[in-house]
Each structure stands twice: as structure tokens, then as C-alpha cells.
């Protein structure tokens, strides 16, 4: 019958179109050896190290640029990079760096003290002719710099307004990476899309929303990398990233969702892990409500089953946190500190002792955000744990920026508890910004739970100006004991960053700094 023919013809046409477009030539364009494809979590904002803030962007930048100093592989300790050596004045306010000789940027210009001065002046001086290539959101990392001076073509001196112990560590942070003055002058505000550094890879191409391609720098001062090129592909959806990895569309994937790890157990993949300076905690409102009572705060620490969170919810991609300082800062971490054990009985006993009548809590949970891991699932599990010992917890979830907009100004009058996570490069940063009395939100800090202990304040101030690392370490260790006892937070987890590589990739390792260094990686 005609109608039937007609329908059948329609189907044949549709199938034909499908075959023509996709199914017929099933040869997937294979990536050549020597080219590494990295699955990133987002499109980078810019490739100007002074202008970006996201770990995601740092992963590209660390391979294109060098700083004066860098972290020694596998640690968070500083070693020479573009500077071969440095001296610090007695009072800790003058840092003088000797630059490496014969280093050139990818655009051919030479690395000189003038270029270094240009870099910091561009960021810090509002009247600098290239200050408008910003904004430079993390320039406050270097706000302690009073002046940058060129001593001779290969010597540069920073004068700080006050002693500032984390200065060297901050120089190793991506914000301190050195860019080509010539390139900034040439491209102006477009430098972020036409970057030029001294690193092991040269920028080649940026196809918006598709890929950033970098190529081997054969003249790299620290030995040319073995890879021919690296392609950074932004794949925002975690499931899609996993599927791309499984299908061979990418060779290396970072931030593997915990639930997906089981997919990569075979020989075709290897999973790499590395603990980093990350801490995931709950801010407790110590100003009002039940958590104003220290016993209740401790009870919460006992009540939350952190082992179940890191091993089950996070599938072992994190470790239980003991205090405010992550173990990755090995020199500053207090090994003697034991995490609060999971002990609901003890929690109930403490609650009884505290005698709080009203244990109802409002708990701010975010949908996701930098370093927040799996916040909804974790928040829900925590809620269940707290309910089990007698709290009455009401969750309110917010998208990340709304969440920050609610939490950063302080929890007073709104909530009793909020999730939070920090990734830092120095043991000073987090406690200094989030535990001091001077860091209450109304004073411009992140102490949203209004914790206040004069002893902690003093310890932190001292540690910041001390130039001797051993002295600093002692102060931090003392601080950790006090803070753990005071329990301004529920200390939950320290994240172990992970990545998956295909079996074609060799010599890949993750760094505690959360950076992705690809110089030594080989792809067959």
C-alpha cells in the first residue's frame, strides 16, 4: 500500500542520513604519540597568571610559565627556578634574587631584572601603564611589597613593608609566575589570549570552548620536555569527562569523581593520588545558638562519622582531618594531633553535660564549588549523623556564589553551621584569614563563625613575622592543639587529589601543590 511505502521510504531516508553522517566511517581520529590530551574541568579564563584565580587555569599556566622559585617536586618546600639563589635580610623585609642567566621567553625576549620588576609593578601599582591589562584579583598575595628594585640586569630586590613569612611560598604560587614584558606591551589586554612565558611548553593555539594547545619548548632551560604537545580540553560535566576517558578521547583526567574511580580499575588505566594542602570543614557559629557552647561544638566533632565520609561517600579520595592545618604542610603539621574519633555516645554525653535545651540547627550546604568535593552528599550524611545524637538539623542548599554571598559576611542571625573548604599554599593563610579575632567578617576576614581566642591570635601574628621555619613550625603546632580543643569547626577531611591516565602515559605524578606539571611526562 502506498502509505506504507511512504513510511518505509521515510525510515530508510532517516537511517541513510544517520549512516552517512556517523556510522559509515568509524575510524576515530587517533591522537598521535607525543601529544597528550588533558581533560580539564572548565574553560580557562585567561592565560595571564596575574589575572586568574582558578586551580583549573593554573594547571595550564604552570606548564607555560616559571616563577622565581617553585615547589620542590613532591613537597611544598621552595626551590630555585628562574632565580638561582636569594638572600633575606635580618629583619625579614628585604628579599634579593639572583636571576638565571640566558633564559629567554617564548617570544624571544630575555629574562632580566627589569622584566621581573615590570611583572610586579603591573600588578601592584594602580598608575602603571599596563595596570589596565588586569584586573589582578590575587595581587594581594604580594601586597606586602613596598618596592621592587633592579639592582643589576640579573638581580632584583623586593622591599616589604613588614616581615611576611609566606612571601617565598607566594612567589611559587601561580600569581607569581613571570610573563614576557614584550608580549604584554605588544598585546595589551589581549595578552591573556596570547601568552608568552619561559616554561617547558609554548602556547600554540586557543580554540574557544574546545581546546588550548601548547607545544614543546625545545630551548627550555631545565631540559626540553619529551611531549610534542599538550591539548587541554575543557569538559565541564564529570560524567562526560569520565566517558571521554573510557572512550579514549583524553589521555589524562583530573578530579575524577569518587564514584567513577571503580571504572578505572583495569590495566588500561592507572589512578594517581596525592594529598594536598586542603581542608574541608564545617564552620560553627560560636557567637550564638547551641554552638556558642564549646561542649556542643566538641559534641558535633564526635558525632560526625568522618571515616564513613572519606571512605564511603568520597570513596577514599580524602583522609580524615585532625585539625585546621592539613598534613601536606609537613613541616608545620602537628603529628601528635589525633582526629576526634567517631563516638556518638561521647557526643550525647557532652550534649547532656552542656545542657543546651534547643539543639535545632540551620545548616548551609552548597551545590558545589572549588574544593568542596561532594558537598550535598556530605552535608546530607553529616545531617543524618547529627540527628542521630539529638540535633535537629535543617539544611539549606545554595549555588556556590550565593552560598559565598551568605557565608562570607558571617553566619550571625542566619545559620549555625556552614560547609567550607580551602586550598592554600602556606600554613599561614587559612588560620590567619579564618580563625583570628581580627578576621571576623566585619573586619574583612573569613572568620564567619566568630571564633575568638587571644592565644591563637598571638601565635598566628608571631608565626607570620618569624623568618625561621623551625620557629614558625613550633608556633603553628601549638596553635593546632588549641584550635582542635576549642573546636570552632568540625574538622572533616583532607582531600587527596586524583587523576587517571591511560596506559600510554608514563612518568606522571601529581604534586601536593595541586599543580599539574607535565614536563617529564611521556606518551607512547
Amino acid at each position, binding site marked *: 500500500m502506498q502509505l506504507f511505502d511512504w513510511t518505509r521510504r521515510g525510515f530508510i531516508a532517516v537511517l541513510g542520513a544517520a549512516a552517512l553522517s556517523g556510522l559509515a566511517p568509524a575510524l576515530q581520529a587517533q591522537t598521535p604519540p607525543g601529544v597528550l590530551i588533558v581533560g580539564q574541568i572548565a574553560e580557562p579564563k585567561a592565560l595571564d597568571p596575574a589575572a586568574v584565580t582558578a586551580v583549573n587555569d593554573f594547571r595550564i599556566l604552570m606548564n607555560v610559565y616559571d616563577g622565581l622559585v617553585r615547589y620542590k617536586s613532591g613537597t611544598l618546600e621552595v626551590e630555585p627556578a628562574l632565580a638561582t639563589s636569594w638572600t633575606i635580610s635580618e629583619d625579614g623585609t628585604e628579599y634579593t634574587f639572583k636571576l638565571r642567566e640566558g633564559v629567554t621567553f617564548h617570544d624571544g625576549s630575555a629574562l632580566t631584572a627589569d622584566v621581573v620588576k615590570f611583572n610586579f609593578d603591573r600588578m601592584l601599582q594602580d598608575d602603571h601603564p599596563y595596570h589596565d591589562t588586569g584586573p589582578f584579583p590575587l595581587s594581594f598575595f604580594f601586597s606586602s611589597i613596598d618596592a621592587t628594585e633592579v639592582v643589576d640586569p640579573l638581580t632584583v630586590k623586593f622591599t616589604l613593608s613588614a616581615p611576611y613569612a609566606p612571601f617565598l611560598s607566594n612567589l611559587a604560587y601561580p600569581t607569581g609566575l613571570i610573563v614576557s614584558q614584550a608580549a604584554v606591551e605588544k598585546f595589551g589586554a589581549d595578552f591573556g589570549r596570547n601568552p608568552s612565558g619561559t616554561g617547558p611548553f609554548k602556547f600554540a593555539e586557543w580554540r574557544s570552548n574546545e581546546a588550548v594547545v601548547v607545544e614543546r619548548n625545545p630551548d627550555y632551560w631545565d631540559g626540553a620536555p619529551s611531549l610534542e604537545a599538550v591539548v587541554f580540553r575543557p569538559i565541564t560535566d564529570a560524567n562526560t569527562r569520565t566517558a571521554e576517558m573510557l572512550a579514549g578521547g583524553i589521555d589524562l583526567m583530573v578530579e575524577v569523581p569518587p564514584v567513577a574511580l571503580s571504572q578505572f580499575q583495569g590495566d588500561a588505566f592507572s589512578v594517581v593520588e596525592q594529598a594536598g594542602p586542603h581542608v574541608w570543614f564545617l564552620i560553627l557559629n560560636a557567637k550564638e545558638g547551641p554552638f556558642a557552647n564549646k561542649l556542643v561544638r566538641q559534641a558535633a566533632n564526635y558525632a560526625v562519622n568522618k571515616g564513613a565520609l572519606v571512605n*564511603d561517600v568520597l570513596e577514599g579520595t580524602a583522609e580524615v582531618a585532625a585539625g585546621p592545618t592539613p598534613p601536606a604542610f609537613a613541616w608545620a603539621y602537628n603529628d601528635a594531633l589525633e582526629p576526634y574519633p567517631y563516638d556518638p555516645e561521647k557526643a550525647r554525653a557532652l550534649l547532656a553535660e552542656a545542657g543546651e535545651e534547643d539543639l535545632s540547627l540551620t545548616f548551609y550546604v552548597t551545590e558545589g564549588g572549588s574544593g568542596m568535593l561532594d558537598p550535598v552528599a556530605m552535608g546530607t550524611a553529616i545531617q543524618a549523623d547529627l540527628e542521630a545524637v539529638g540535633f535537629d538539623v535543617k539544611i539549606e542548599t545554595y*549555588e556556590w556564589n550565593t552560598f559565598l554571598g551568605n557565608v562570607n559576611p558571617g553566619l550571625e542571625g542566619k545559620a549555625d553551621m556552614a560547609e567550607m573548604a580551602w586550598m592554600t599554599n602556606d600554613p599561614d593563610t587559612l588560620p590567619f584569614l579564618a580563625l583570628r579575632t581580627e578576621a571576623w567578617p566585619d573586619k574583612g576576614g573569613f572568620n564567619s563563625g566568630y571564633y575568638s581566642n587571644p592565644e591563637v591570635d598571638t601565635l598566628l601574628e608571631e608565626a607570620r613575622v618569624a623568618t625561621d621555619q623551625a620557629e614558625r613550625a613550633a608556633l603553628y603546632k601549638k596553635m593546632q592543639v588549641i584550635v582542635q580543643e576549642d573546636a570552632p569547626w568540625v574538622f572533616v577531611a583532607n582531600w587527596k587529589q586524583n587523576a587517571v591516565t591511560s596506559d600510554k602515559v608514563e612518568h606522571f605524578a601529581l604534586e601536593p601543590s595541586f599543580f599539574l606539571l607535565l614536563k617529564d611526562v611521556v606518551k607512547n
Partner: protein
Amino acid sequence: MRLFAGLLARNRLALVGAVVLAAVAVLALLVPVLPVRAPNVTDTAARYLRPLSEGHLLGTDHLGRDLLSRLLWGTRLSLAVGFAAAVIAAVIGAALGIVAGYFGGRTDNLIMRGVDMLMAFPYILLALAIVAALGPGLLNALIAVAAVNVPFFARNIRGITVGIANREFVDAARLAGMGHWRIIWSEILPNVVPVIVIAMSTTIGWMILETAGLSFLGLGSQPPQADLGSMLGEARAALITAPHTSVVPGVMILIIVMSINLLGDGVRDALDPRLRSGALSRPMAATRVARDTVPEPQGDGILTLQALETQFHVGGRVYRAVNKVSLSVHPGECLGIIGESGSGKSVTALSVMGLVASPPGVITGGAARYRGDDLIGAPYETLRSLRGDRIAYIFQDPLATLHPLYRVGDQLAEAIRVHHPLGRAEAWARAVALLHSVRIPNPESRAKAYPHEMSGGMRQRVGIAMALANDPDVIIADEPTTALDVTVQAQILSLLDELRRARGLAIIFITHDFGVVAQLCDRVAVMYAGRIVEEGPTGVLLESPAHPYTRRLIDCVPELGAGRRRLAAIPGLPPAVDQLPPGCAFAPRCGRKQPACEAGEIGLEGSGARRVRCLYPEVEEP
């Protein structure tokens, strides 16, 4: 209401939908007392258990919570949210749509521009604005989802309302002095309700799904509580590793949406007055034929009907619309068929070429022979090649029977081209000539007009021109002049008469107007309740009708001759053709009724051309 329920129950699929939905709703209502695990108790060590695990029928989710329990609790929440949001969106949207569509003009413009604005807006942004203004929570998610769907309803309903607001019954209500709001309430609303219902049934599913999207913004049910959408959202992370956590709420959504849709279709069918009549379905290309025996060829007419039987099967009932009708027409002859509405005269005519809507129509017996070949049960292609070529129809109400979107010239040309391999230009020229032949002035430009641009008389001429397009042997004219005024009617009749004489056409002319019959027809057959009750030459039959029914019919016409004559009502109603009494169908209304009339089958008796189906005819020897 009982009728509604009955109709609903008759639609088996809708019933299935209703039962499933009711079952889901009952389960959801009963969750608090059902022996399921607590939905929010976590056991992270036992996470991602597969369905049918011990103690967890549907497995567990990422925190080791029992999926069955969460599913039931989630369904409860989702049903509430979905229905509430759908109702809110439907009420607000429909109100806006009706007001805009009914009042039109500036009001319409204002409302629709607002709706456009809302529609052109990314809903995720609207949702964010709502969280910002109201904070997170399920109730606010409900508001967001409803707000997003308002424009959809508003647009749909406005379209329907515009159509209705210009219809005759609304004009009538307006003339009767009814207020705007009463018209909206009593005339417009009942007509848009089916549309609202079906639109709601399609949107509830989306609404449940949309909460999954909103949970991504922190909008929606707050953990640990979860509706189905949030369950999906939470399960998304484990889509690859533990797809069952997505599949479980997904299947429940599917079940709900499916049952709502099935039920929605049923409700729509039950609410729609046209569908209520049982004509639920679209007619096939040719009427279904289911007859046991084929009568032997008989008679010498160009078109002969032999004991033709056509029935309508609706539900379990059988309507005998045409009951053993035999007729014959010769070239150049005009046969009139006359009878009240529902007497089966039109169905008889349509049965010839298999044009009775089927379902529900079925030809169950008899034959219709054109030049001796049986048309009933002929292959579709044979039938098609004769339709419009050898046997052509002229229908009543040409505004409805001409295609509203084609130019009349094209419609005429098409009638020619489907039977003769003619070029476009040639066919067009023929069409113009045809228009000319039915005396349409200025046919060249008229051919380019659309039916709605012509007057009723003109359109009817187009209908006649179309019937003449291929110079047919037989024309079956089904009340072609009923809708026309007297002068136009007279012109058309004389046109037909002239054509028949000039071309030797056989015409079957169906009417309920004796005036027309007298003017045009050589012979007349009178139909009642699907049967021919009397037939004979026009003059004789009009002069001395034999059947009491014919008598009554003619009595209703005070004076024969020119002019407009309508059948006046005869006391009582024709019988329903699904419950025909034994014996004479007219007996209950007949003044001459005797017991024998209702005893059994009465034959169509008589001699020559004159026959009557009556035991006690008005005239002794007709």
C-alpha cells in the same frame, strides 16, 4: 458526571492510566503507614546496593539509603508538586490566555508581549531570581516551575480562545446581552477545558523533571528530603557506575507521566462533545466492507443498488443506517431520494463509492453496480479511478466541503489531473472553462480565489463544476441547494437540469424538499429509518402518495410548485436505528396503525415503477 465516568471507563487505555495513577497515588498517600525503611537513615557502608539486594528491594543510593522508601516518599512529594505546579500554571496561564484571546486588541497585545518576554527568557535565570527573592525550598521551586510554564499555557489557550471568540454562539451570547465575564465563564471556558486538560497532562511530567534541573541551583527540596526530580539530580553523579539510582526514580516518573497522559487523553476524549458521539476515529480511505453474499447482477441501470446495507458500529451498538436499499438510475434520468434527517439517504449515497466514514461505518450487505460491476468491496484503486471520474458527488455546505487553503482553480484542476495526465496549465485552463460552464462570471480571476472569499452560491457552483470536471456518467448530489437562498437555488437546479439533458447524465438527487423534487426529478424514492418506504414516478407519487409517511410529508407542504418548501415536523420522532421495531418503523407515529403493522417484516410491494412498503396504503392500487 456519571456519563463522564462511563465514557472514561469505556476507553480501556485511559482506564489503565487511571488505575495505575490511582495506585501510585494511594501508595504515595499510604507511605507513612507502609512498612518501609526510614527514607533518611544513612548507611554509607551499604551504598549503591543493586536492586533486589537483601533488605533493600530496589537497592540503596549513594548514602546507603533505601531506594524503595525514598522512591515512595519522593513520589508523594513529586505528585504534590507536579499537580500543584500544573494547576497553578494552568489557572494563571489559561486566565491570561482567555482574557487576551477574548478581548483582543490592546489587552491582547499587552498580555502577549509580556508572555513573549517571559518565554524568551532563560528559565534558569528566572529560577535564580526566585531563589534570590524567596530563598531555597520546595515551595519556591514549585513557584519557579509554575512561573516558567505559565507562558506555555497562555499562548496555547489564547490561540484556542481567539478561534472560539469569533464563533457564532459567542456572537449570539453577546447579542443576548450577556456580560463579558459570563460569556467567558459559560461559553468560552467549557470549550477550552479539554485543551487545558491535555496541556496539563503533558506538562506534569516536565514539571517533575524540571525540579531535577533546579536542584542544580540549590532550588528544590532540601536534603535529606527528596522529590523524584532531586533524586535524579543526586543520582546524576553516579550515572555511569550505578545507573540504577537514576533508573529507579526515572521509571517512576515514566509511569506517572504515562498514566497521566493516557488518562489525559481519555479525559479529553470524554470532554470533547464531538468525540462523545463515538466518532473517535479518523475515517479510512474506503468504507469497510463485511458482507457474506453478493447478490446476482440485476437490472439495466447505469448505477444499480441491490439490497444495500450500511451500518454504524459504535461501542457494542449497531445502527442500521441503510437497510436493504435497492435503487436504479438510467442515463439522462434524475432520481430523487427524499426523507427526514437521519433517514439514511445521505449514507446510501455515500455508500456507493465507499465514502461513509469508517470506522464506525461498515457495509454489511448488498451491492452497488456501475455498468454491471460491483463497487462494494472493489479494490481501492478501482474505486479511486471511478470516484470523481465516472461517478461524481456534489455535497451540501461547500464552505466545509471545499479545502479552505487551496485556490478553487487548483482544486478543480486537481480533480482533473488525478484522472487524466494533463499539464498544470492545461488543467488550469480546463478549470477556468468549467467555472465558466457553471456560469461563474469572470472565471479567470475567480479561479484564483479561496473558498472563503466567495459567496455561498458561487461556492456551490464550484462544487458542481468539480463534479462535472471529468464529464461523469453519474452525479450524486447530496442536498446541494439546502444552504442556498431561493433565487440561487432555482438557478442551480436549472443548471443541473440543463446539464443532464445536454450530457445524458444520470443524477441521484438527495433532498428533503418536495419542491425541488418536483422541479427536477423523474422518479422519487422516499426513505424512512434506513429503508425505502415508497417509490414511483414523481408526478404520480406527488399526486397520490401511497405510504402514510409520504402522505404526511406532502401534507406539510401546503402548495406544490416553485418556492421554498420545508418538511414540517411530524409528531413524534423517527426511531433510533439501533433499536428498530419489528415490522413498520413508522408505525409508532402512524395514524393508520393496525396490530399487523408491528408484527413482522413488511415487503416493498407494487407493480412497475410504483412500489410501497405498507400493509394499509393510502391508495388501494398504487
